């Protein structure tokens, strides 16, 4: 009789282990997937910038420094594109604030605001900024639930046995980039 109980307990433990392990795998994949989403959107923003500069250049004769700052920030962000979340977040925040400076002065160029090409770009840029913050939001939420699983009892035992490590958040460190869709064209 006792043997049956022991075997039963062992079987239940094994099942629990498998279920927990699978859930951890699913959460880790979700984190990876969410990270890929951010990556897509950041790349998209990098791709939009040359086009933006090209469109804007003719109109903005006195904003050379601002434009150069954007190009510089973009190149820097591209260089660290394969680094971890913390490094990238910093470079991308730099780019965001450079873009913000450019779009803040658009108001002084009425001709530019009437340009169809620019309007389309503006919609794309707004949406890309939104998508970046939404994918970041989803990524951070995914990381939170994954990290909770890897740190909370009893799933943390399975996690440490099978090598699941907590993931890094994609934090925005530069002040002013905190409120999500920050790019303001006004």
């Amino acid at each position, binding site marked *: 009789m006792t043997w049956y109980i022991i075997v039963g307990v062992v079987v239940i433990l094994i099942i629990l282990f498998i279920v927990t392990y699978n859930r951890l795998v699913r959460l880790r994949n979700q984190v990876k997937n969410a990270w890929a989403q951010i990556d897509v959107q950041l790349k998209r923003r990098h791709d939009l910038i040359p086009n933006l500069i090209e469109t804007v250049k003719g109109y903005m004769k006195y904003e050379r420094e601002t434009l150069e700052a954007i190009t510089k920030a973009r190149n820097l962000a591209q260089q660290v594109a394969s680094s971890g979340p913390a490094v990238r977040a910093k470079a991308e925040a730099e780019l965001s604030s450079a873009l913000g400076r450019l779009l803040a002065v658009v108001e002084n160029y009425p001709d530019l605001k009437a340009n169809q090409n620019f309007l389309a770009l503006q*919609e*794309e840029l*707004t*949406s890309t900024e939104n*998508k970046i913050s*939404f994918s970041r939001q*989803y990524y951070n939420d*995914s990381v939170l639930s994954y990290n*909770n699983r890897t740190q909370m009892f009893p799933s943390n035992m399975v996690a440490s046995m099978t090598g699941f490590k907590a993931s890094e958040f994609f934090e925005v460190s530069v002040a002013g980039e905190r409120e999500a869709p920050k790019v303001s064209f006004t």
Partner: protein
Amino acid sequence: MWEQIRSNQTRSVILVAGMGLLLLLVGYFLGLYFFDSGIGGLIIALVVWGVMSLFAFFRGDNILLALSRAKKISRDDHPRLYNVVEEMKIASGLEKVPDIYIIDDPALNAFATGRDPNRAAVAITSGLLQKLNRDQLQGVIGHEISHIKNRDVLLMAITAVLLGTIVILAWYATRILFFSGMARNRRSSSSGGGSGQIVILVLAIVLMVLAPIIAQLIYFAISRKREYLADASSALYTRYPEGLASALEKLAASTSQLKSANKATAPMYIINPFRKKGMSASDLTSTHPPISERIRILRSMAGGASFADYDQAYQQVHKTSRRIVPASAMATGAIGLRAAGLEVTEKEPDEIQRARETSDLLWRLSDYKTITCDCGTKLRVPPGFKASSIRCPHCGRINPI
């Protein structure tokens, strides 16, 4: 948090199971009464249900879209709408951008459909599209996307089919009962076993009358619950409950009813397409909670955008301690709100611009060409127009096509 949403559905699943039980009961008693075999009735009920389910499962979304005369659009047709849908897809963690449809109707409404998240579609009326600014559009699309994400479409389809089966069975059974039941009854009472037969007859009649009503109430209860959950999810995705709240306000203010809606598809719309003015808060026979209440809950979400905040706001508005979002979904920490997006500022295309945008889109979707003359007049060229140039009726210039 997202994997826990599935566990929210437990209560809904119990309600659906109750409806299934009701269907079996109806089938059993029908069988018992008409062919003296409960099993036979069960089989008939299940066959009717099975056929309707298969039909709804494989053709339901197409039928719904066709019934509402929705037209599919691509990214180039309306970049802003497409982008907003894509944004909400990212925020919700869906794998695929749902297909986007436009319904040419001045009424303000929107719905989601599709039996699984990879075959989903959202549809929005042209009236709503031109009425909403970007933040409001985001709120509405967030609500629809969460119907897809939370599998409400599937749940409501299952429930609707169950309801439909019960209604059909009860309807036919009462007809047969009235027109031929008496003869059948006389025959069986002459062959003995009278009192048992009468009990079954009474039970069958009671069931025929009550089952459709009960099923309908369950259906409405599930639908209303999913609406609250979709509002909560929309606030969570957008981090901006005010967007959906002000969108709902605009929806509430409009009086035009959607031409193409029908009773079966009502729960999938963002607001009840058949609502009347001044619907009371405790209305059991509505697919949607009253809009004013939904707005008040969203506006009371002062602290943050999480499910816990929505729940708190719900309790505050209703003055109860009942939860609308089960505790399992609220394990995560505080989630902050965000400031209004850029579109609320002066840069946003105003309503006139949006109306032009939408009407251009609708003309294009009907294969009309739009030519802008140098004088600013827009010429709509119908698809069958053969000539190679057209004269502007306003200034007389000849425009090539």
